[in-house]
């Protein structure tokens, strides 16, 4: 599979070690994740029945996924009826080739983009630059990481791993001057520089938060306004839609949009919610907007998830709430996950989408505490999926590991064996307890832990003696 090269080649453990050793990253992550989690609580309190909305959203997404082929078909037919070009892309390479073909056929070389995780996935920017296009990311955070040649470390705030000083360093390379590390000044520089790019651009490329099948519409939620400019100023607009990002009706969209910004940033609604149906309607008197609209529908490994035990992952609306809630993400940050998606949703999606022998270990980047499930506005049981991925990877466990677990299972399946093992454990515990024990072969576990001291008599013994 082509597409963006993952940072793999390093191990999850080594990537995590780099992250947790960086105090600036730790402070940035704590600030971001705490702020978002607090704002989310306030925003959800506006709903009369937040849990009911979540339950309904989960069922609504399930209903869409169960009928996805027919709904995509009617979505595509509606698009065609409104004069939209529809491009089916089986994988990253085909999606990139389609968009390069659109650029060639429309004579476009200057490309502006608004944030799109799907095109991060396919590595579109490199593909377009290889055919001679100049590609500018226009979301402030995405522009910063484009200039720094990095991948996003959070799906909502791509440059969250950098503080204002590190961002000023990056922007000063293009400003050629001395921008102060003041957010307002840095943002003003970005506005001026990127405004020029918008007005010169031939082609605008956006993602799509949702497609609405009943009218063939694309919905985009943004705060900066770059999404509106990308989809309105250039004469050609390409929207890239992950095939699962569909709802059937506008009442479903109403529900999803009540949840997405509240879960993502704690906003009741984003600054801009754009609904796009077809290109500029000249006959209806519209004088602005793109002359051509192209919608690329992307599979890229998604159909291989459909119908499997991981099916429900396709309900994800990319809000990032599970990242903010996850005790692992909060310590390790996004780059530890090695690819474009991070946090619990990334730990599930990456091994499913990316055909890499190193991806499955991401499922271990979880304590299975279920905070992600609790945070998910569409109720995806992420910890079940993470557990499923571990199970799937299990046949490759070492013979020794398998033998150990099988001995344990046999022993504890019989009352006699269970009691014997408890007595032995308690005896060993009293000998080692309270000390820092070093057990050969388990040093990573024991090296940072102090063994507890068990009670002299077990609960079971006291129960049998009638003491409790």
């Amino acid at each position, binding site marked *: 599979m082509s597409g963006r090269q993952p940072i793999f080649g390093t191990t999850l453990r080594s990537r995590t070690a780099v992250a947790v050793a960086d105090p600036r990253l730790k402070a940035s992550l704590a600030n971001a994740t705490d*702020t978002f989690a607090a704002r989310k609580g306030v925003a959800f309190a506006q*709903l*009369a*029945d937040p849990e009911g909305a979540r339950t*309904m959203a989960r*069922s609504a997404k*399930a209903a869409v996924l*169960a009928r996805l*082929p027919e709904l995509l*078909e009617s979505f595509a037919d*509606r698009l065609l009826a409104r004069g939209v*070009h*529809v*491009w*089916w*892309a*089986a994988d990253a390479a085909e999606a990139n080739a*389609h968009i390069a073909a659109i650029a060639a056929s429309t004579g476009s070389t200057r490309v502006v983009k608004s944030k799109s995780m799907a095109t991060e996935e396919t590595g579109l920017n490199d593909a377009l630059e290889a055919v001679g296009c100049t590609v500018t990311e226009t979301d*402030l955070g995405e522009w910063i990481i484009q200039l720094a040649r990095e991948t996003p470390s959070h799906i909502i*705030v791509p*440059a969250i791993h950098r503080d*204002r000083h590190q*961002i000023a360093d990056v922007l000063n390379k293009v400003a050629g001057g001395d921008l102060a590390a003041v*957010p307002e000044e840095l*943002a003003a520089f*970005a*506005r001026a520089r990127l405004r020029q790019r918008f*007005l010169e651009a031939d082609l605008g490329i956006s993602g799509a938060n949702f497609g609405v099948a*009943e*009218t063939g*519409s694309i919905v985009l939620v943004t705060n900066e*306004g*770059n999404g*509106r400019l990308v989809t309105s*100023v250039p004469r050609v607009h390409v929207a890239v839609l992950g*095939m699962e990002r569909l709802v059937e*009706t*506008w*009442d479903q*969209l*109403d*529900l999803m*949009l009540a949840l997405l910004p509240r879960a993502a*940033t704690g906003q*009741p609604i984003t*600054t*801009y919610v*754009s*609904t796009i*149906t077809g290109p500029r309607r000249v006959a209806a*008197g*519209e*004088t*602005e907007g793109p002359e051509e609209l192209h919608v690329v*529908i992307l*599979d890229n490994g998604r159909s291989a998830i459909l*119908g*499997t035990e991981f099916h429900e992952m396709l309900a994800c609306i990319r809000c990032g709430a599970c990242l903010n809630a996850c005790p692992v993400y909060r310590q390790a940050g996004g780059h530890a996950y090695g690819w474009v998606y991070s946090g619990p949703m990334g730990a599930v999606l990456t091994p499913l989408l990316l055909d890499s022998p190193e991806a499955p270990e991401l499922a271990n980047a979880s304590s299975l505490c279920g905070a992600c499930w609790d945070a998910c506005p569409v109720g995806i*049981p992420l910890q*079940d999926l993470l557990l499923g991925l571990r199970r799937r990877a299990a046949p490759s466990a070492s013979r020794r590991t398998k033998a150990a677990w099988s001995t344990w299972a046999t022993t504890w399946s019989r009352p006699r064996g269970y009691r014997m093992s408890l007595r032995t454990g308690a005896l060993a515990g009293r000998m080692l307890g309270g000390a820092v024990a070093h057990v050969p072969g388990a040093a990573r576990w024991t090296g940072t832990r102090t063994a507890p001291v068990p009670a002299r008599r077990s609960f079971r013994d006291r129960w049998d003696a009638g003491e409790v």
Partner: protein
Amino acid sequence: MAEHGDRAAFLGRMRMALAGGAPANPIRPLTPLPAGRLPSLEYAVDLSDMRTRFTEAATAAGAVVRSLGSPEDVAALVTELVAAHHVRRAAVSGDPECATVPDVLSAFDVDVIRPGDVQAVAGADLGITGAVAGVALTGSVVVDSTRAGGRTASVLPPVHLALVSLDALVATPGDVFRGLGRRADDLPSNLVFITGPSRSADIELVITLGVHGPHTLWIGLIG
């Protein structure tokens, strides 16, 4: 208009994957959906006085709301903004709420830019549009590209004035969204909900206004 790539193969892969039906999670079963359309969302927010709620929500989002009781009030607000923001050029949409605005601007020698010349709109100091709806819950104004005749007057200039009629206030975003399905062939190419000025939190989550769109949003409530 054309279709590219292999629709049949694309959908075929999905149909094959779903041939055995969508799998269920036996530990956490789905709650059945009500029949037909989804019920409207209920909010724990007092929406009985839409004018008050709209004003509060829009203000909380960073907009400045003015009540305009008469056509003279519209002219007075436009005049005030011309002075306050040193307006030399203003982009004015084709919305009916803006019908009297070009004459007011011309009286102050302000160049009026009509929809269609995006480069000129980008040079405007002020953009003025109407709105098909105002949403009380969120303080949003909804701008329709067909009605306005264009898209950019509400996003390219550094200051945006949206004129919305009191009669156009609705309670929730759903009141707008849920009507769109019936308009399949008549939807504008762009229908945008605007809530407060353009903002970014991409640098240390510090809110900065006017990153790509307007740094200031004025809303005139007419009626």
